[in-house]
């Protein structure tokens, strides 16, 4: 699996801060710890996993697919689900550095949905929440409406990068389509930006990538893949530890390709079928008995510990 050097000098990790950042966004979050450059899920929020004592560790939380504005039978109360997750995150024994939200913040890209989501996420007691757009956030006018609420660096684009705790974080927009009838894509401009962003960084720098749609093809007939993901993977492959965090498919799946680990997360809104699930011809919301919904929604906590091979990561359902 992955091995890599400890984080380079000059990247002194305010791991606590990084963790807090993640925590901001998670509703039902997974807590991630980046250690030695490889994120590892620690366990669900509310669990004690994120509170480990590794000096310099960076813990953050991933939430995804809140679909604020959705109100069908599959989940008549998505706001309640988000609030449940945020309460879990706020109750973590160690405040995460931040929270990341991997897209589909809204259900229909409506300004009132973005506004509501932004207000709700302020209930997270973390420093920041980092978002990337989902295809539900770009329905009518591309990323324009989304950016009015979630333009993180003020540059008017939905992709960005930042460094924290010795970890390089990259947020990508892979939900726009450039060619009819194909999967959505990153596009040439963004790939050029990514190449420049990664250029000159030490291969030992742990990299965490946020993108809504999986960066590998999970199930093409349902659009569960990124048309030009191979080009992004080629840029990421030289790094010793790469963790890709996706949403979109509302369930946890993993794939490992060399030093690159890809993880999809649970939603905070409603479940979707398994990829290509027999008897279900399309990726629409699945309605389950009310008592079971919380088991299928959740968050992810990640912790990166300098010098350790893997990022620890733990998925926790709202029913934990």
């Amino acid at each position, binding site marked *: 699996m992955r091995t890599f050097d400890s984080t380079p000098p000059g990247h002194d990790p305010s791991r606590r801060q990084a963790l807090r950042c993640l925590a901001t966004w998670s509703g039902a979050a997974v807590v991630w710890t980046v250690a030695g450059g490889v994120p590892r899920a620690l366990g669900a929020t509310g669990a004690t996993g994120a509170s480990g004592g590794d000096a310099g560790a960076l813990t953050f939380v991933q939430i995804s697919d809140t679909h604020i504005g959705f109100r069908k039978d599959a989940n008549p109360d998505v706001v309640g689900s988000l609030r449940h997750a945020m309460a879990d995150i706020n109750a973590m024994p160690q405040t995460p550095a931040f929270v990341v939200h991997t897209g589909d913040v809204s259900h229909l890209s409506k300004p009132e949905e973005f506004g509501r989501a932004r207000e709700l996420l302020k209930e997270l007691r973390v420093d920041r929440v980092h978002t990337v757009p989902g295809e539900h956030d770009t329905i009518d006018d591309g990323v324009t409406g989304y950016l009015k609420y979630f333009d993180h660096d003020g540059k008017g684009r939905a992709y960005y990068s930042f460094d924290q705790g010795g970890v390089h974080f990259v947020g990508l927009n892979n939900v726009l389509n450039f*060619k009819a009838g194909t999967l959505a894509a990153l596009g040439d401009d963004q790939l050029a930006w990514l190449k420049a962003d990664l250029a000159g960084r030490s291969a030992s720098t742990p990299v965490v990538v946020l993108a809504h749609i999986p960066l590998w093809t999970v199930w093409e007939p349902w659009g569960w893949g990124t048309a030009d993901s191979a080009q992004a993977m080629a840029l990421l492959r030289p790094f010793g530890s790469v963790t890709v965090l996706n949403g979109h498919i509302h369930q946890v799946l993993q794939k490992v390709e060399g030093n690159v680990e890809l993880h999809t997360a649970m939603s905070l809104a409603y479940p979707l079928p398994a990829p290509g699930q027999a008897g279900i011809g399309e990726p*629409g919301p699945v309605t389950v008995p009310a008592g079971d919904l919380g088991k299928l929604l959740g968050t992810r906590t990640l912790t990166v510990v300098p010098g350790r091979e893997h990022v620890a990561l733990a998925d926790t359902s709202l029913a934990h």
Partner: protein
Amino acid sequence: MRSLRSLLVSSSRRAAAVSVLALCAAAALPTLSAIAASPAATVTVDITKFTYAPKELTIAPGTRVVWTNKDETPHTVTSNDKSFASKGLDTGDKFEHTFAAPGDFDYICTVHPFMTGTVHVRAIPGR
């Protein structure tokens, strides 16, 4: 749910011109009625299970096409040449467009670009 009216704006501007064209076409080509029964013909397309049903249509100029989203997931009807484009359609929302001129119009759902459909507008049946 958004109102029907707000979803129907896109083609209202062309309605008058279209109906005149349709009348002319109908007069010149009586057999047109086999495809589009009258100048005011309306054809419906359901958006269901992440597909357009039917996926392909052949219609006469002047025909109005009405799409209805029957999924719990939002979809759009967006032509590749940008000649028509719906907003995001929630469950039960409709979008309509009246096709004035012959041609082949491919469209997709911008939320799910693997969903594709085509409207063939033919002045003379069979062409």
